[in-house]
């Protein structure tokens, strides 16, 4: 459960999501491909974890497995020790493409999760208010998504996912379509939001810098077959300022990941 905005979301070492020898194979016209190969991963309570790697490394497949959109060929995917079967409200997803419902106002979008879960009206109103203000969208409650910019719609999408109060928040390259300035702004907002409210976030990206800035741990993945190359802990503290991006430590981590990717053949 996402903790309320008192910042007391204590880090624990309890695993929320577990992948055990998770393997996904697809049959295509050109034969069978292994999208995910015996992946073992534990995602902890209130952890911001980034799955990072090039196209075809299985990061999105792993996210789809956790979301319940993709069944495993073999192995196990567990949420709090129970097998994941199909998509439900325990795991909200923010997609790369625009998934804000255009026929609902901003407030109706944010209210969709708690409304679908039949929460009491006062609680819905409170959640909508809280997350619109945490994402700096409080002035746009009655706007149609069509009237907003792409970056603002992403904020609505994140507010909607948070307001649904899932066990785990899944984000599939949510800022992939945005220009880099907007991307950095939204990365900062997301990290602040998480530092403030907490929650377990699995964030998929192909952008090394994005992964380092956002993640408490980076799971570096390599393609053909998709598997984990290394898990790198990132120690920039809970609240992160924009200037860490140019710090020597940041650049050193970045270099390390690039070298790792070159070694594993993911980067030529």
């Amino acid at each position, binding site marked *: 459960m996402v903790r309320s905005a008192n910042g007391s979301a204590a880090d624990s070492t309890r695993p929320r999501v577990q992948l055990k020898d998770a393997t996904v194979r697809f049959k295509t016209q050109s034969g069978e491909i292994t999208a995910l190969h015996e992946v073992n991963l534990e995602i902890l309570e209130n952890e911001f974890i980034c799955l990072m790697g090039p196209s075809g490394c299985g990061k999105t497949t792993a996210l789809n497995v956790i979301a319940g959109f993709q069944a495993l060929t073999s192995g196990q995917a567990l949420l709090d020790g129970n097998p994941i079967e199909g*998509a439900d409200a325990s795991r909200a997803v923010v997609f790369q493409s625009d998934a804000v419902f255009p026929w609902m106002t901003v407030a109706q979008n944010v209210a969709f999760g708690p409304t679908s879960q039949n929460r009491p009206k006062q609680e819905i109103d409170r959640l909508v208010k809280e997350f619109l203000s945490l994402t700096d969208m409080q002035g746009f409650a009655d706007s149609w998504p069509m009237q907003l910019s792409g970056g603002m719609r992403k904020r609505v999408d994140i507010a909607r996912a948070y307001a649904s109060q*899932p066990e785990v928040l899944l984000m599939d390259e949510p800022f992939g379509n945005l220009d880099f300035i907007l991307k950095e702004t939204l990365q900062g907002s997301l990290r602040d939001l998480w530092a403030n409210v907490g929650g377990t976030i699995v964030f998929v990206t192909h952008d090394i810098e994005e992964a380092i800035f956002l993640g408490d741990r980076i799971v570096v993945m390599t393609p053909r077959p998709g598997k984990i190359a290394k898990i790198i802990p990132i120690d920039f503290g809970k609240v992160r300022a924009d200037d860490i991006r140019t710090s020597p430590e940041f650049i050193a981590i970045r270099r390390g990941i690039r070298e790792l990717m070159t070694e594993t053949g993911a980067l030529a």
Partner: protein
Amino acid sequence: MKSKASNEEGGSYVKYLGIASVITVFAFWVVASEDGLGWFPRIKFPPPTEVFTAITVLQEKLLVDAGVTVGRVIFGMVVGTALGLGVGLLMSFSKPIMAFLNPIIESMRPVPVIAMIPFFLMWLGIAESGKLLLVTLGVFTIIVVSTIEAIRNVPRIYVNAAKTLGATKRVIHWRILLPAITPAMIGPLRVAMALTFTLVVAAEFMGAQAGIGYRILEARRLFNPQVIFLGIVELGILASLFDYFLRKIMGYITRWSGRTK
């Protein structure tokens, strides 16, 4: 994005072109009839003056006919659309229902509904129910197919997002699929509306006690060409009005979509 530029393209005279086209047709009517140069005999082509006289002769019959026809049109549109949307959603909802109903609908659909008029007459006589059933069926076949196709075109991402936010299948149908298809339904609804007028008049030709179609057929028997003309003009005006209001209503329902006005 709402764009006013496309409306103003080509200057302000564009909005008067619609009025101009109506005036042109009316002018041709005046000139070609015996009110003007008399190109066509009044028996085949009644002049406007005679048609206007017909209004004063028919008086309340005119309103009753229009009311009866409009009632049938509205009934067919409302019930046919509701059934078409409902069954279309139901078929997308469940694979067994789709597998069972699809062959029936697909084999019925290519049959012109008008061909069923004698069949309805056989079973229901000239009772109101036969006419209402006919229009409803005509609207239903258009709407049900359009609904199924429109639902197929709804991006999966909306359905997936809704699922991860805790929406049940019922919520997904009412709050995701139904609103998502409304822009795609405007065309089919307008087509259905035009067809509704055709079917109501055809049904009234086959047997009725009132209605514009009935009045037109009666006028042919009594040799009143001006009443036939009046009926045609009446239908034209009513059909345009209905289309206008349909577009207004759908424009309001889809105001979120930013489609070109």
